[in-house]
């Protein structure tokens, strides 16, 4: 149902490729597809119109650069337009010169204000601050309880008192000052944008606390209504930014684009999971690829860079290319990869992953078992698994607490992987990887330009002429 934009483009681009340059009619055809993709991603109708107008202008002007492949050219333009529309850079928090820095959280019911108040508190703590959470949602039953529990979980004190939310918020800020907490996060009740009474109440909370930052909490699954909500809250509170929640689902998050366009303020934070640590500053370029259905390659690379040492990486890669990849290397790689975060999350970031695989729950216990099996092998066995016979297999199974069939399966899997690795260089595009992952990765090369921001540096290393290219990076 929600095929990605790149898939949509395939047909058009196959035709375009033979042409060489973009004609106006081609641009229009592509724009129609982009329009559909944006609407399906829940970008607001009006916002779609204005973005398309911008893309069209850029696309037609860009026809002069005939050197580029038209497909790449359009994708690049679209991506740039989206990144620009989403706000270019990540936000930077400026702390108040006279603490506390007050942060007000507002939004519809069920958008995730309470949970994200706590997550934000945790984030501030990581920045070396001492936040205080203020529970001013006195409406929903047990909302303050929830905040208290969450506060405990992230190690941040919570202030609340029954009665009037405006008074509670005011007292909360005073309390923060008294305790010397330098950040004060005020959680408010969810309210409908058209509820005049409650909107007035939140306005009074805002006046009473004079927040340095007012964040609108928006559910990534929100549809066309996001614009109305953002407009109303912005009118009442003068928003400073948006916190986008529930991004861990498969909603495209087009609402973010709508909100950004309307409010004109950046999306500051994004929440990507149920755990308190699944929360970080927002990266517009990454959501752009998501709206277009292109995966999150940049985050993946960033994580990889944190984990891998360059030299070590080159050695491994060399081994890999020579086909000398042993189970020892496999084990080492596996451990490195796990340092990058839960395997589940990594899968989700890969572009071109088949959906069933991306959403498959990876059992980390399964991975532990694989590690145990390899560790139960002797050095000789790890270097040359072919020597593993029935009795060795049984020993390994016993040693790792698994069944012999598990051992066999791992070995089989490893052999297949080795074959795959050997075929990797020299073959263009994702072909080799594809056979391992099923049909969906097909023919993506050159179609998913990530805006040309990350260009593989083709410097003189021992890599073969045609390096393995990740879709989206050429």
């Amino acid at each position, binding site marked *: 149902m929600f095929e990605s934009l790149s898939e949509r483009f395939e047909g058009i681009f196959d035709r375009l490729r033979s042409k060489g340059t973009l004609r106006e009619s081609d641009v229009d055809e592509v724009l129609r597809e982009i329009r559909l993709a944006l609407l399906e991603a829940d970008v607001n109708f009006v916002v779609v119109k204005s973005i398309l107008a911008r893309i069209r202008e850029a696309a037609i002007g860009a026809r002069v650069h005939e050197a580029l492949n038209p497909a790449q050219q359009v994708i690049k333009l679209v991506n740039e337009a989206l990144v620009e529309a989403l706000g270019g850079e990540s936000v930077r928090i400026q702390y108040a010169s006279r603490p506390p820095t007050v942060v007000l959280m507002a939004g519809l019911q069920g958008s995730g204000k309470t949970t994200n108040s706590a997550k934000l508190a945790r984030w501030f703590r990581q920045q070396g601050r001492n936040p205080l959470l203020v529970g001013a949602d006195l409406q929903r*039953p047990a909302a303050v309880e929830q905040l208290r529990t969450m506060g405990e979980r992230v190690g941040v004190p919570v202030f609340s008192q029954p009665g009037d939310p405006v008074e509670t918020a005011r007292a909360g800020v005073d309390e923060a000052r008294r305790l010397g907490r330098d950040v004060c996060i005020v959680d408010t009740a969810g309210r409908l944008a058209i509820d005049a009474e409650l909107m007035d109440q939140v306005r009074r909370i805002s006046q009473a606390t004079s927040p340095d930052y007012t964040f609108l909490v928006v559910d990534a699954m929100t549809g066309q209504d996001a614009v109305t909500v953002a407009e109303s809250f912005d009118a009442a509170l003068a928003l400073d930014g948006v916190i986008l929640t529930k991004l861990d689902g498969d909603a495209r998050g087009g609402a973010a684009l709508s909100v950004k366009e309307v409010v004109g303020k950046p999306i500051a934070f994004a929440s990507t999971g149920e755990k308190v640590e699944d929360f970080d500053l927002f990266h517009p370029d990454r959501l752009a690829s998501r709206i277009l259905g292109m995966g999150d390659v940049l985050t993946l690379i960033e994580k990889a860079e944190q984990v891998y040492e*360059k030299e070590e990486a*080159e050695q491994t890669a060399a081994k890999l290319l020579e086909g000398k990849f042993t189970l020892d290397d496999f084990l080492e790689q*596996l451990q490195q990869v796990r340092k990058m975060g839960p*395997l589940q999350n990594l899968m989700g970031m890969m572009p071109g992953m088949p959906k069933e695989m991306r959403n498959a*729950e990876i059992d980390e216990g399964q991975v532990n078992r694989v590690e145990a099996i390899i560790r139960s092998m002797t050095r000789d066995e790890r270097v040359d698994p072919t020597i593993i016979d029935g009795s060795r297999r049984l020993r390994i199974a016993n040693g790792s607490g698994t069944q012999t069939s598990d051992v066999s399966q791992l070995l089989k899997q490893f052999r297949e992987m080795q074959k795959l690795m050997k075929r990797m260089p020299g073959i263009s595009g994702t072909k080799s990887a594809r056979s391992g992952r099923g049909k969906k990765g097909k023919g993506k090369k050159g179609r998913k330009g990530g805006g040309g921001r990350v260009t593989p540096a083709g410097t003189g290393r021992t890599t073969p002429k045609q390096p*393995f290219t990740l879709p989206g990076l050429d």
Partner: protein
Amino acid sequence: MEIVILLVVLAVVIVASLAYVGLRARGSTDLEPPPAPPVEAGASEVVVVEDEGQASGTVLAPPPEAPTVEGPPVEVPPVRPSFRDRLAKARGTFSGYLGSIRSRKVDAETWDELEEALIRADVGVAATQQILDQLRTMAKDESISDPEVLLERLKALLKGMLATSDRSLHHQAGGPNVWLFVGVNGVGKTTTIGKIARQQGAQGRSVVMAAGDTFRAAAAEQLAMWADRTGADIVRGSEGGDPSSVIFDAVERAAARGNDLVLGDTAGRLHTKTNLMDELRKVRRVADRDPGNVTEVLLVLDATTGQNGLVQAQQFTDAVDVTGVVLTKLDGSAKGGIALAIQATLGIPIKLVGLGETVDDLVEFDPDEFVEALFA
């Protein structure tokens, strides 16, 4: 950089192969040394678990006062007028949306504006195109040029898509009926249960709430407050405990006390989380075990939800066989058009609509009012 990318790819191939192995292993049961979940096994075992865990299964509310008398079909209280009133409030903000369509004869622009109206109501691109294609054929066949006639046809078409014989909440005689409430996070499951408990109580049914949301902080407290307000029983488990056992415990208690209805709350979950959806499957299975009888599985859907709502409905139906949709927060500015797409595509009827914060604001769905409001 190339090297890093290469390794990332390698990593992913590794991960993918592991995931693949994992998937297959799960499929063929005999490969794994299975640490089978205990509650799965049998009713007797569950009872043992419950008895040992003193935290789980505490009855908070007083015992049910009245033994029950049964009337088979369910009728939600007649609060129909509030649908119109409540929607009118939201409608006021957006009046005149179709103004320019009405002002001239049907032309190319009319179609564009109709498309815009439907998409803006979150009906979705695919459904909108389908609807308008049908309307176009109709307009051609009957050579309609009057915009009012065209609009009437469109509304009739939409109402036709929403037509269903049965929007009642099912209740069968015999053991305690279980109504499960499922959905993604923050849609209003707990609140909906509170309201339904009050309404069902008013109809003379004795209700037990099962605090199956053992994940979110203070979710059980929230439900307990509703139980307090409505005078229903509540069965709670420990935070982080097994939701199936909480529900089963509630069913057993309801059976022992001769209660009619168990309202099973579940933790909000994104439909993409395979393990959580499996957990939900189990909740349904366990709830359906004797003496329980699952007669409704209601998907609670926030009216502001966009196109992802369709995927949600699909996934939840695949997992637990959803019998109806509760569309909440329709008193806001959102039109809830995705519910139309859901009923049209998946055939799941919208049963109830949330139009405000009070108990009486949860009303039976009215397709006519809903369609009118789409264009308001």
